[in-house]
């Protein structure tokens, strides 16, 4: 088909829509935004006659590469350190993808523009593609990588683990609440336009450096669909901007969506890229450098800032604070340290950092060793069972953190922790913006304006609550993270697969009960709680207890 005929074909399919004369389509979802009918163009002009063969060709390339990887014994060269983190990543990501498919109908009745509906329907099936192609990649890893544990139990683990639960926001946020907040601002304007760059471009690059060229094969194929989705989002955004009464909501939603994406995606992908790699070339980009390029320059400066010409106030302060957290407050390092502290609750293995890793971190993040070096040395010392307990229960100068009620990443930048009583419960938040999200943004009124369609934070948001005062052996058994001998843990704090060096339930039996920080917090008197807060914000960095006066 010539380019000209694609344009003609796309023009022709606009004739398909019609104004209902007898019955309106069902309206399942609401929004507090207002839209006027407008002929906003579908910028990509995609028709299915060319779309299906294009995707099929992309598939041929993906599956050809997968055959090649197996025939070429790719798994003799993959780094176990890298593959282990894929157990977490690939347990999470198929749900956000399929949730994006489920999100598209939220826009059908709320955005009155049939031309955009066509693009949204194509995005829907794209997302089905992405979810199943990623599940398939995980299946391939399970079948061909040395340690299938954690891949083989992936979707159960994802559902009952604290880390999977953090990742689940990057899915449930697309499909509930105000339709525009969820399916447009959170999903397409922020998640897809900003953060898929680090997810689907930066991370696959790191995979290749660790001997895994299947992740880039699959995820670059996925990313090549994202431009279409970004266009869907932008067209909707322009429609929303044309009505000034929407600006207040847009500003609220950009603040929430930006900050939540930063908290969740930077925590996960930052950790994978910085702590899941064996590539310690000094000239390879750190996550901070990638973030600066992909998100600060490409998204913030090139995409968000130009929206100011429409009169929109964009969250400069939160963009700068996200960068501040990554560069000055060690956000990614704190998260990686927490994942490693809590290795007993994981379904993947995390090996200790080595001298080569230390050198790289110090080079890329000057001052890193002073903050984190001693702790990682302890992690190494305590990695093989030898009469001691797991690191979480040993004295290594680390105070177990409280969890952020909103983003569910622990409050790791201790000085920023905020305490508030919301809905009759004392809650901790990693930042003032996360407190605002729960206490102010996700409410039926906002700045005096009725917002009856805004969503709600629900669920048992603190994982530790479920296991308040349990022994960790029982926790791990309850979650199902035990290998087929009935005692060896799926998770290990090293990569040695010698059964004699692997941790078992018996080792965990020796640990003390594990109390829930939030339950404990709510049992405190006001004075105790104030003292707790005063102490907490003096902790850190690297989780160090507050200095004794």
């Amino acid at each position: 088909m010539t380019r000209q005929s694609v344009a003609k074909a796309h023009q022709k399919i606009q004739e398909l829509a019609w104004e209902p004369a007898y019955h309106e389509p069902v309206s399942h979802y609401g929004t507090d935004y207002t839209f006027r009918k407008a002929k906003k163009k579908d910028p990509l002009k995609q028709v299915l006659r060319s779309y299906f063969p294009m995707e099929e060709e992309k598939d041929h390339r993906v599956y050809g590469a997968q055959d090649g990887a197996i025939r070429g014994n790719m798994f003799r060269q993959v780094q176990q350190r890298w593959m282990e983190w894929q157990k977490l990543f690939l347990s999470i990501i198929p749900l956000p993808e399929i949730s994006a498919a489920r999100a598209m109908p939220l826009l059908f009745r709320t955005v009155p523009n049939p031309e955009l509906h066509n693009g949204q329907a194509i995005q829907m099936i794209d997302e089905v593609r992405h979810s199943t192609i990623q599940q398939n990649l995980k299946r391939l890893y399970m079948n061909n990588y040395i340690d299938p544990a954690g891949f083989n139990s992936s979707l159960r683990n994802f559902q009952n683990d604290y880390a999977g639960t953090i990742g689940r926001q990057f899915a449930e946020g697309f499909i509930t609440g105000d339709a525009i907040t969820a399916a447009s601002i959170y999903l397409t304007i922020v998640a897809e336009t900003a953060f898929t760059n680090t997810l689907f471009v930066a991370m696959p690059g790191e995979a290749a450096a660790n001997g895994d060229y299947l992740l880039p094969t699959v995820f670059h194929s996925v990313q090549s669909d994202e431009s279409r989705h970004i266009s869907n989002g932008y067209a909707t955004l322009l429609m929303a901007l044309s009505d000034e009464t929407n600006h207040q909501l847009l500003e609220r939603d950009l603040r929430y969506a930006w900050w939540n994406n930063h908290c969740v995606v930077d925590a996960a992908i930052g950790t994978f890229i910085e702590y899941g790699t064996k590539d310690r070339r000094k000239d390879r980009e750190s996550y901070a450098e990638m973030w600066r390029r992909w998100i600060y320059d490409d998204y913030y400066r090139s995409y968000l800032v130009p929206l100011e010409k429409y009169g929109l106030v964009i969250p400069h302060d939160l963009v700068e604070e996200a960068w501040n957290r990554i560069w000055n407050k060690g956000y990614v390092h704190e998260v990686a340290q927490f994942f490693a502290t809590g290795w007993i609750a994981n379904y993947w293995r995390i090996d200790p950092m080595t001298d080569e890793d230390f050198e790289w971190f110090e080079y890329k993040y000057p001052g890193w060793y002073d903050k984190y070096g001693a702790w990682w040395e302890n992690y190494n010392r305590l990695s093989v069972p030898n009469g001691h307990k797991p690191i979480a229960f040993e004295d290594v100068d680390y105070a177990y953190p409280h969890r952020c009620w909103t983003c569910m990443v622990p409050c790791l930048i201790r000085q920023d922790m905020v305490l508030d009583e919301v809905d009759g419960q004392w809650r901790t938040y990693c930042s003032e913006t996360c407190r605002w999200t729960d206490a102010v943004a996700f409410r039926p009124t906002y700045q005096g304006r009725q917002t009856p369609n805004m969503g709600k934070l629900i669920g048992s948001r603190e994982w530790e609550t479920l296991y308040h005062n349990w022994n960790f052996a029982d926790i791990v058994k309850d979650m199902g993270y035990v290998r087929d001998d009935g005692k060896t843990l799926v998770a290990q704090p090293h990569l040695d697969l010698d059964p004699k060096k692997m941790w078992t339930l018996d080792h965990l039996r020796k640990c003390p009960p594990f109390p829930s920080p939030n339950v404990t917090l709510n049992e405190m008197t006001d004075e105790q709680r104030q003292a707790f807060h005063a102490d907490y914000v003096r902790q850190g960095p690297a989780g160090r207890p507050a200095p004794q006066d």
Partner: protein
Amino acid sequence: MTATQERPGSQEQPQRSVPKPVFTDAEAGAREFPDSTLRRFNYYVPRKRKQSHYEDVTVEVQPDPRHYLSQGWLYGFADGTGGYPLDWTVLKAWGSDRPVPERFPGSGGQGYEWPAHGWHEFRDPNEEWEQSIYRNNSNVVRQLSQNIDAARQSKAFEQWNPNWVQFVAQHVGAWMHVDHGLGLYLFANANRRAPTNMHNTAISVNSMHRIRSAQDLALYNLTLSEEIPGFDGTAHNETWSADPAWQGVRETAEQLTAIWDWAEAVFAANVVFEPLVGELFRSNLVQQAAPGNGDFVTPTLIGAEEYDYAERDLRYTKALFEPLVRDKEFATHNTEIMDSWLATWVPRCLAAARTLQPLWSQPDAKPPRFEDGLDRAKSRFRGILADLGLRTPKELNQ
């Protein structure tokens, strides 16, 4: 001087910085240890003895607080409902009435044993996932493009008589609106509503079949506008919006998109509307009339849609509803509900079918009589109901 030494004065090549390949021996089977041979997903029970590829890439992707989702849904609508509530349809699968397990301090994370309720037992017999979707639909669009190209090159459209040209412009063209409306506002809409990933994936594929068929007809219409002098490429709009013969179909199609309950929407569209109206129009009118009017091209488009419905979309629809009819806990409840849907939708669809009757007299070479076509459609419909274990409603005799 050795061969590798630089000659004086030659420019030094900067050393490229690239990751170094490392032999890690991290392939399956390199060592034996606990779990080293457990290479299958262990969180679900397959439908057959062995887990299928389709099951591996679809089952459990959409979580459920009744079994593994220990912390429950995290984000809800304004009323506090999150995820995929079972009461978005009035149908019930066994276990549907069991409450979501309560979580509280020290409760642990255990839910009901997988699958917790009968909805998770549904498997799409078409086993649709990424590869099948693109393979099948690409085959269709390629074949249709080739058929139309071949017809264009052989001047096949010149053999059409004028009445048939008008019939295709107006009536075959009008059907594209049905496909588009149902594809987007019924099926794509329903892909957010069903309780498992297997349901929603099958429904989203159904949606793409209908949207693709709509575009196939629209682009065919565009080709005909270019190939046949006097072909009115916009006639379908007027026919759809104003021709009395189409208003019954239009009203019913719009009413289908207005259904709140996702299962009723899929049932009404695929169990009732498609055999009584869709196949009546496609198989018992267009396919029968076209050859006699010199047209061998249109049946290939219509046939592609017919195949999608009869061989794929109806297949998953039967697999979806038939187990609910014989559900071990809610068979009676579900049968009564589906009977009530039949009592509602059969008269509407029959009325829509009958408003189409004038179309049968329009081609020069006449298709078999409308009543004969309708009888065939009813017979087909009875067969579908029998497969589902449902009684034929008395309304079919109207």
